[in-house]
């Protein structure tokens, strides 16, 4: 079929928004524009991060995510909560920061607790296995298990607190960071609504338990 347009005329230039793609392809034009914007962004300077209110917040925010043994345990709390479902999904992440802060307070004041590092590694193993085996104990028992481990995690953080940081903003950053790790676990745990998601979450539990073993036997 012959085209009705003049074959000698130059084709009109297309803008990025007019770049058409096959029906099932993602249009590249908008994303090219986005990448161009991002290349123009300046890098932000991060001066004085160790001191003052902002430094205290950043220091506290980074502390819980600084150690893999802590991170996996926090995520495991959220995952397990999501697995238990109902009230447990939110009760465990409410219990953990409060009890952890109590442990942190003990650490700040120099009250000694034995076997802290081993208990933290053990928390990864126990919580990971709870997720891996999809264990559903009584809610009170689950809260006690989480609470006991939270004291050790809090104590470890409390004893490692930098003295120069602003205490108030340090605590705010620390608690928000911990809470966000729990929320990440809960978000991942919501995959359990689908059969394949359950497999993914339980596999995550196995991985967390393995990390715990790694720390317990000093392999990591």
């Amino acid at each position: 079929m012959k085209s009705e347009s003049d074959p000698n005329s130059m084709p009109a230039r297309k803008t990025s928004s007019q770049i058409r793609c096959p029906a099932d392809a993602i249009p590249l034009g908008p994303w090219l524009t986005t990448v161009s914007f991002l290349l123009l962004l300046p890098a932000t300077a991060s001066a004085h991060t160790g001191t003052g209110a902002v430094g205290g917040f950043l220091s506290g925010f980074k502390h819980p995510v600084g150690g893999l043994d802590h991170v996996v345990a926090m995520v495991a709390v959220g995952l397990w909560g999501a697995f238990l479902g109902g009230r447990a999904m939110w009760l465990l992440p409410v219990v953990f920061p409060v009890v952890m802060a109590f442990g942190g307070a003990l650490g700040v004041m120099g009250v000694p607790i034995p076997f802290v590092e081993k208990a933290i590694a053990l928390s990864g193993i126990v919580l990971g296995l709870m997720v891996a085996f999809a264990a559903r104990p009584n809610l009170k028992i689950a809260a006690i298990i989480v609470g006991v481990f939270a004291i050790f995690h809090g104590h470890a953080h409390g004893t490692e607190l930098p003295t120069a940081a602003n205490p108030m903003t340090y605590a705010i950053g620390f608690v928000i960071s911990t809470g966000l790790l729990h929320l990440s676990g809960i978000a991942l745990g919501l995959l359990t609504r689908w059969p394949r998601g359950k497999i993914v979450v339980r596999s995550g539990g196995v991985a967390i338990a393995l990390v715990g073993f790694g720390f317990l036997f000093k392999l990591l």
Partner: protein
Amino acid sequence: MQHRISRSPLLPSVFVLLAVPTGAQAHGAIKGLEGFTSGLVHPLTTPAHVLVIVALGLLLGQQKPLDLKRPLLVLMPFLAAGLAFAATGIIAEIYQFLLPGIALCVATLVALQKTIPQMARNALFALAAVAIGLDSAPEPGSAAMIVKSLLGTWIVVVFLVFDVGSYAALAGRKEWSQIGLRVIGSWIVAISLLVLAFELKK
């Protein structure tokens, strides 16, 4: 089939730009501010005040039956009294445990989602208002400047408690958002505990 997003090429850019963090502006918020503006900003830049204000607002919004008016009517004069004491220098400094301690008590009630008797609620609001007022001593300056600064602080604290309380009451209509309020309460409890420990260590 045409993807809808292709009609607005700037849309992804806007989303990405919104996610880009802004650079921290150390010491930029307070320097150069004075009078009314300084008073307005003061509670917002004092983390201990923010914690108490948020906790009071959440408690206010959680109470059943909802009553925003009476606790605020208690808050307003006691806050004014605290500010007046601070400005006149009658009480120069407050006990460092006071604000984190009040935040701890109020946030514990929020985390437990407890409705408390009106008398106890009013007493908590009065204590918190006096404590915030006493901890908001204005910078030295002319009498007019000090009054403007105190007025700014008074307005922003009352407004924020009312505002947080209103949003908490709206949020409390759904079960998941009630839980969200309790989670925020538990975070404030944890922060207050840690701060109290820091203070004890000093």
